[in-house]
């Protein structure tokens, strides 16, 4: 397929279909409505099914049931909707089921607004629902990268039997860019060994029992330890990031998603003016890329955490830097993106 000009939300939907997703359950919420609209229009052509749940709560539990069959399922929503889905995400993670969730973030808290934001970083990476669990969280920064992340999302979801969240924002959902979307074959592993409906195919007609409840303390502790081992494995095998000009940087920006994209322009301008500014862009927010921060040399004078929120990633950045450098935050929120000029000024102020 050649490059085509597509809106972010529609590119997400088409990428999912090309990766083999055939079951979509969702509920409309701005600014991601084109995803369910696209799915409702196109899934039937591919033999798939779109169902509009009566709420985000119902939709995520439809996802849970469908994911338990071992087929590829997806839901998408935006911030307040994801809050409603948190119950189900905790169950899906606790039940070790593969599912893909896209959060096209808008501003909060509460009903907030409908404009772009990155205010759900903490909810996405630290929980949201109850219990010790993690989603694997990807934060792409261009539409082409979003397409690639969406397509590979089920590979990770099945590899770890864990929900994967793609954390986009309203800018990425609503902007248009040329993208190339090619078919992607998802690796589903031994899905029949656990997927519902395959009892007859298993040795000894062994049944599948998918659950998160363990009433015995030792069993629940063992279950949580097993989940933790999985999260540790993600950290070892599948942490992803991009580095830009960090070799000689005196100021390193830590940023992801749309904000990182804006920061790239600022860095380019600053470099032209002789300022040594670089960037570490986490692509996975969980597992968090500690390694590139650990590798930074003493040449670095300062780290600037840059987000479209009030500073949600800064604690992770501070942990990653192990207090070797001063870390400060700059960000805008409520639907306002930091401008290239604002970022340049902030960097110049820090560098003096």
């Amino acid at each position, binding site marked *: 397929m050649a490059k085509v000009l597509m809106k972010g939300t529609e590119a997400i939907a088409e990428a999912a279909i090309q990766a083999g997703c055939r*079951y979509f359950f969702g509920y409309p919420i701005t600014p991601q409505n084109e995803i369910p609209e696209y799915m409702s229009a196109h899934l039937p052509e591919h033999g798939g099914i779109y169902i509009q749940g009566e709420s985000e709560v119902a939709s995520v539990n439809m996802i849970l*049931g*469908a994911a338990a069959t071992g087929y590829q399922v997806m839901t998408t929503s935006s911030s307040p909707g994801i809050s409603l889905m948190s119950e189900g995400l905790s169950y899906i993670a606790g039940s070790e089921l593969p599912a893909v969730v896209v959060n096209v973030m808008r501003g909060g808290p509460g009903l907030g607004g409908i404009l772009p934001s990155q205010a759900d970083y903490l909810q996405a990476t630290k929980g949201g629902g109850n219990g010790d669990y993690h989603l694997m969280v990807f934060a792409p920064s261009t539409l082409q990268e979003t397409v690639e992340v969406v397509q590979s999302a089920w590979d990770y979801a099945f590899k770890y039997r864990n929900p994967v969240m793609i954390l986009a924002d309203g800018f990425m959902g609503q902007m248009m860019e040329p993208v190339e979307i090619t078919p992607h074959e998802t690796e589903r592993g031994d899905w029949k060994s656990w997927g519902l409906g395959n009892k007859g195919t298993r040795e000894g007609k062994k*049944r599948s029992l998918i659950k998160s409840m363990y009433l015995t303390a030792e069993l629940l502790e063992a279950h949580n330890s097993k989940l933790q081992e999985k999260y540790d494995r993600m950290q070892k095998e599948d942490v992803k990031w991009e580095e830009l000009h960090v070799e000689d940087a005196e100021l390193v920006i830590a940023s992801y998603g749309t904000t990182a994209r804006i920061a790239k322009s600022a860095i380019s301008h600053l470099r032209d003016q002789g300022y040594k500014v670089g960037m570490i862009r986490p692509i996975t927010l969980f597992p968090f890329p500690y390694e590139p921060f650990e590798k930074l040399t003493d040449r670095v004078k300062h780290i600037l955490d840059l987000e479209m929120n009030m500073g949600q990633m800064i604690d992770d950045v501070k942990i990653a830097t192990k207090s070797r450098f001063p870390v400060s935050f700059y960000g805008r929120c409520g639907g306002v993106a930091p401008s290239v000029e604002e970022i340049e000024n902030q960097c110049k102020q820090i560098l003096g």
Partner: protein
Amino acid sequence: MAETKVYSRPETWTKGIHTHYCPGCGHGIAHRMICEVIDEMGIQEETVSMSPVGCAAMMYDYIDIDYVEAAHGRAPATATGIKRVLPDKFVFTYQGDGDLASIGMAEIVHAANRGEKFCTFFINNAIYGMTGGQMAPTTLIGQKATTCPQGRDPELAGFPMRMCEMLATLETPAYIERVSLAKPKYIMQAKKAFQKAFNYQKEGRGFCFIEVLSTCPTNWGMNPAEAFEWQIEKMIPYYPLGVFKDFE
């Protein structure tokens, strides 16, 4: 003299296991009937269910079929996800009154309205069992529970919800019946309703809803015999037995 076997454990009942249910509780009877129907139809490998939240949360230990656990009230949504992916499998939810008529009211109404082609067995014992006897949406007026110690007051809590009547107002459901487990005659009628619900699913006829009036001697503060009597005297007049909707 040749022996004739008249009674045995269903094949689908997990071998060598006893339930945790209290004496006189209806769950054991309802579970057993589900197992019997699955055996009769030879669909043990084709049946998928989800455990509810409440006393029957561990029903997966007793019925040897594929199981996934559902969140409180969400079983009809979870079942929707399963049945839409696996339309040829038999799917049923089994939910108590708190699960279905309180926290999960939206999910059951909308699944019924979409005509999801699975069965729901709604176990109504007019109280919260697992959490220790609190008021349910189905608790009768004047009935005492730990959160209505003076008896349910409609001024405070509204009137008990009649789920069959409510769901029967929808165009879509294929079959809705209320049955009881309070005496052998009722149990035999209930078995027929269970068989019909599974047969309708086999024929792809749409959503089937069987409300099962059940007993909770422990939380009602009665012995089992008194509980069966109480159900006949108090519950059935408010929750009349019978068919509320039938495809045929």
